[in-house]
């Protein structure tokens, strides 16, 4: 079973520029979470802070009792072995072939025989669909392949926590869909806690159990996916609909004057653009046939049912709807 990640009051600045402040959330063990946010809101910085590559000024990140911000370097190094991180552009070692890249964590951390390593690595290469390319250097393959190789390397040590930095960037829609399914299947198989940072709406709508959004130096919300998907907070609804109208501007936030002008224009046009049809919550992806039942999903169900009282009305309805067919015993 995966490990719970508890983030408390995290604040990070680069020099004078504050990236985000007072971010607190809990990634429930074995569940899939997505962190959304417009480009440049510090999503990648957040990932790197969780794994201890960047040191926020305030707050804690607790994993198995180890604080990834303030604990000793030795403890942090040990805890990192529980992680698999998929970098935005793969971050493969340029001087090694794909095979050696993917075998690297095994060779560093285990005393497995070369034949055993070969078996595990080829299995992972098969999962991400790179069979036949294992002898190539990272410079000789496309960005999408590099990304998948990065995922294979992140998976090779059977991590308890998997962090994905924009798994979709550089992938075509079909491959993105495959990747989404792959992430869910992985979660069903190894029950790892997963955090995906992305701004891809398809992934956001179909993959996660929980969703959060970073905007304007703050965590807007974090909770069960239905809460965000049905939210009428202007930032969230603008982002999920991919509209220009709303508080998110080209640089980051719009100023009051622009917003007021926009409002007026909408009013004069009968406000058709902003009042979108009530968003329907797309059902979450299920593991492929033959995969085990996702333990994280079962745990989540109990957790969400317990917190039902605190959720907004729309989210409550969506959750009940999503669990209605399942309650019929289809998945048990």
């Amino acid at each position, binding site marked *: 079973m995966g490990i719970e990640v508890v983030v408390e009051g995290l604040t990070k600045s680069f020099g004078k520029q504050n990236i985000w402040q007072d971010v607190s959330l809990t990634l429930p063990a074995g569940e899939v979470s997505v962190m959304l946010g417009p480009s440049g809101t510090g999503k990648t910085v957040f990932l790197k802070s969780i794994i201890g590559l960047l040191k926020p000024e305030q707050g804690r990140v607790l994993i198995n009792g180890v604080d990834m911000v303030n604990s000793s370097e030795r403890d942090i190094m040990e805890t990192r072995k529980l992680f698999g991180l998929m970098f935005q552009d793969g971050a493969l070692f*340029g001087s090694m072939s794909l095979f050696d890249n993917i075998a690297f964590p095994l060779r560093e951390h285990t005393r497995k025989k070369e034949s055993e390593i070969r078996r595990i690595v080829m299995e992972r290469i098969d999962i991400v669909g790179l069979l036949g390319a294992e002898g190539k250097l990272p410079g000789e393959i496309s960005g999408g392949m590099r990304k998948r190789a990065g995922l294979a390397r992140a998976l090779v040590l059977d991590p308890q926590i998997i962090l994905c930095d924009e798994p979709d960037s550089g992938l075509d829609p079909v491959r993105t869909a495959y990747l989404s399914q792959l992430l869910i299947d992985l979660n069903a198989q190894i029950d790892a806690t997963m955090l995906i940072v992305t701004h891809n709406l398809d992934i956001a709508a179909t993959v996660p159990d929980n969703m959060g959004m970073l905007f304007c130096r703050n965590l807007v919300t974090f909770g069960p996916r239905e809460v965000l998907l049905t939210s009428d907070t202007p930032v969230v609804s603008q982002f999920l609909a991919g509209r220009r109208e709303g508080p998110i501007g080209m640089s980051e936030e719009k100023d009051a004057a622009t917003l007021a002008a926009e409002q007026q224009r909408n009013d004069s046009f009968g406000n058709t653009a902003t009042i979108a049809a009530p968003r329907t919550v797309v059902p979450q992806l299920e593991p492929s046939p033959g995969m085990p039942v996702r333990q994280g999903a079962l745990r989540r169900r109990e957790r969400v049912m317990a917190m039902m009282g605190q959720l907004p009305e729309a989210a409550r309805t969506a959750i009940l709807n999503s669990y209605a067919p399942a309650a019929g015993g289809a998945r048990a």
Partner: protein
Amino acid sequence: MPVRPPEPPGKPLPVLSRASESKAPVQRRPSRLLAPLRETGKLFALGIAVGRAIFRRPFQLREFIEQFWFVASVTILPAALVSIPFGAVIALQVGSLTQQLGAQSFTGGASVLAVIQQASPIIVALLISGAAGSAICADLGSRKIREELDAMEVMGVSPIQRLVVPRVLATMLVAVLLNGLISVVGTLGGYFFNVIMQDGTPGAYLASFSALAQLPDLYVSEFKALIFGFIAGIVAAHRGLNPRGGPKGVGDAVNQSVVITFMLLFFVNMVLTAIYLQIVPAKGG
């Protein structure tokens, strides 16, 4: 429609950012003045971290051998080629000086001492920092900007232990061995030029050599080479691990690494020479 997204109560953003702005100049001014000190401190910290990581298992033997071979292969030939003219220049210069003073019989001792104690470690320093250090710095720097080092750290592998330690040890060992090579080649070159070109007598050359030179001269020469190798390795690694901004930053880092190493090595050489001359009495004095 609210202008800003809802913020956590009790933490109004504008107030916070204003507070940090008013604090900023107070924090900023010393930081710019102390920047060189901070870099120096980081350099020492890296030196200590590498010193500690040397004894941590598992030792990266493969990487060490590869790096050793690489450093040796880029330095041996230039070292040998540089040391012959260097030995010759010293021999000719000392020879003509001693001729004027009428102390021609001491040419051998004087030129050999100069080659072993000064010329040879300095040539080592130039080659190790210029050829090996720049390559190490560029290698680490490009790995850093491509996030390879981050990826390594994320996998629970310390780049210092995995990459920096084998490189520093390789430069140290190559420096010591290279110093021996240069001493021999330089001395032979000096002998050749003194005996053939300046009509010195082989007997006088060797006799004065054994009259003036002593074993500690060789020891201090090797010790200097060891220290130079360490400094060159650490500085190259330090600059390579902290490049500023993209590929251009790596180029700048390599440049800085070579310049900083040169300055440090010449300074350290001066200090070591001064200490050595104080504590080890000259032979036959």
